[in-house]
């Protein structure tokens, strides 16, 4: 699959750093040595997306497509799903052709950096918020996930982690509840500025 022009970038240019040359110039921090999905993972992702598209199309076909007044609720979704599945099918085909070509040419894939589980940890923190905030309230949950993320992402003494957890959880609750006037859950224990004020 190709590269797109977004987000953190690295320049591919000449050593004299113009825009019409060949050698690399400064890379964005964090791009060197990062994990990229291998052929199996890439194919799995494509298949998952195809499955999502397929389910969507089936549900879209169950909706009314056309009526007396013209297109109905299912018309646009069927069109969109068809385009999506067509593009994905083409991409799957191209991907398999590339794999076969690489296999025939005996090209050995470069060793990939391993997947960094810190990524799963960050996602787990978000999931923990969803799962626990109704019971524990915003302050407690944010304190827990702050502590977990700091352990995962850095190496700090326990007291710094505890201090950061308290500061970030309390100040975020204060900022959103008292300053911006938005409600945040205080949980079954009633811990939060929304309950206290």
């Amino acid at each position, binding site marked *: 699959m190709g590269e*797109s022009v977004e987000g953190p970038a690295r320049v591919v240019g000449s050593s004299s750093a113009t825009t*019409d040359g060949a050698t690399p110039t400064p890379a964005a*921090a964090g791009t060197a040595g990062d994990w*990229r999905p291998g052929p199996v993972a890439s194919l799995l992702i494509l298949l998952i997306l195809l499955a999502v598209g397929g389910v969507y199309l089936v549900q879209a076909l169950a909706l009314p497509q056309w009526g007396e007044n013209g297109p109905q609720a299912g018309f646009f979704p069927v069109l969109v799903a068809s385009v999506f599945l067509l593009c994905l099918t083409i991409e799957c085909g191209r991907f398999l052709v590339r794999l076969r070509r690489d296999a025939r040419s005996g090209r050995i894939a470069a060793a990939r950096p391993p997947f960094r589980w810190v990524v799963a940890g*960050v996602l787990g923190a978000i999931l923990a918020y969803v799962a626990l905030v109704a019971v524990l309230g915003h302050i407690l949950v944010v304190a827990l996930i702050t502590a977990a993320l700091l352990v995962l992402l850095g190496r700090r003494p326990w007291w710094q982690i505890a201090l950061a957890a308290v500061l970030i959880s309390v100040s975020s609750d204060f900022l959103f509840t008292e300053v911006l006037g938005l409600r945040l859950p205080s949980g079954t224990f009633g811990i939060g500025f929304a309950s206290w004020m």
Partner: protein
Amino acid sequence: MDVIADLGAGFAAILDPVLLLTLVAGVLVGSIVGVLPGIGPIGAIALLLPLSFALDPAAGLILIAGIYLGSQYGGSTSSILLGVPGEASSVVTTLDGYPMAKKGRAGAALAVAAIGSFVAGTIAVLLLMVVAEPLSDFAAQFASPEYLALAVFALLVLSRLAGGSFVTTFAAVGLGLMLATIGLDQSSGTVRFTLGSAELIQGVDVTAVAVGLFGIAEILLLAEGGTTAARMPKVPFRSLLPSGTDLRRATPAMFRGGLLGFVFGLIPGPSAVVSTYASYMLEKRISKHRDEFGSGAIEGVAGPEAANNGAAGGAMVPLLILGLPFNAATALLLAGFTIQGVIPGPLFMSSEPALFWTLIAGLYAANIALLVLNLPLVGLFTRLLHVPRDILLTLVVVVAIVGTYAARQELADVFWLLLMGVLGYVMVKLGISRVALMLAFVIGPLLETSLKQTIVLAHGDPFYLLTRPISATVVVLTALLLIVPMVVRRLAARRGRRSPLDLEVDAT
């Protein structure tokens, strides 16, 4: 004269202490977040958008606009001082800005970048003032067929220009459109694709999509990267004053870049990135100091930085006058406007003139604030680059979660944040455009409504769009923008030369 009077009223409104404070806060916060490598303007707007919810429409829009412009400038600070582009549109600034910093001329580079951004911002606001009324009157003639043609134009041209495979980018468009159809169909009242979940009847929240795709995904990439803060040159305040020679060389480049950027901003796609490259190529071609490019030519900083800001201003034209975002940043701005209950489009100027001109004045005032505040505070901004990575990432994750939840007070939105974060991360790894998905998600409802109404109006005529002059023009323009680059590339390949349309940016 009416335009000047209206703009004057807009400036008078901006002088309200609350609005002024909001403006300064937006510019500062945007600059701070923009300085941090990896997050970029789109991530910054996505993460900070929820902060605008609690404000009234004028203040909310000005905050968002300040964040937008501030984050554009912030990216160039890290490009110049660290040689690490904050985001894709700051890559070109690195080519000459960083060499200038290594030669002890970081102050001049930063100053020229700020002044160039200011000049371009001024040009953009002036041009916006000039075209706003006539374009609004023209756009008032638009009906469903014209909006359909424009929406398809935006998506197809973006898919072409976003880089990478057209097929995968178009698949991303399809995925964005699919997401946009979840929930209640406004025209028929049918509930679609909710899988029985009551929370999904309202649809997927734009904040969750934006923050997930651009905020959380960037956090995951940063967490994976494990970078450490680099050593930076100190920038004494006195050195921020560029010399007479610097200004003499940089000023024409600023004006050229600003104009070029504005024009590019009118086209769908990564206009800011494309405009910076176009400006750099132009400056290099016409410069008397061509040999300096790549090792510290001041024009190589002034032109692209002005182009970057000019494109930001140009992109506001389709957003404010047509109600159509042509890139991810303006798609997020549209989301912010919608949350504030403001619908940009042909009627925006006539139905909400006070708000419209306050916003225009706010954009100009944000440019002034950028110039006045950012240069003296550059030392503070660069200190931020030393904030421990673990603290920074943790803070951003918490802000992202809470901000997303605060939008509708629905935990389902945080779950979508998680899903979109995973999707955005995977899309970056596979080189698939997230901008295409975001843009499609935002303009999906408009596209569906326009398509249905056009089909009804067409009475079975497949060439109906070509019978109406405006939509026919847009269709022809779409075809040209899709076909011409292909033809130019093929011709260049036959001659064994690189196409002038090829950009040497390999960005993920």
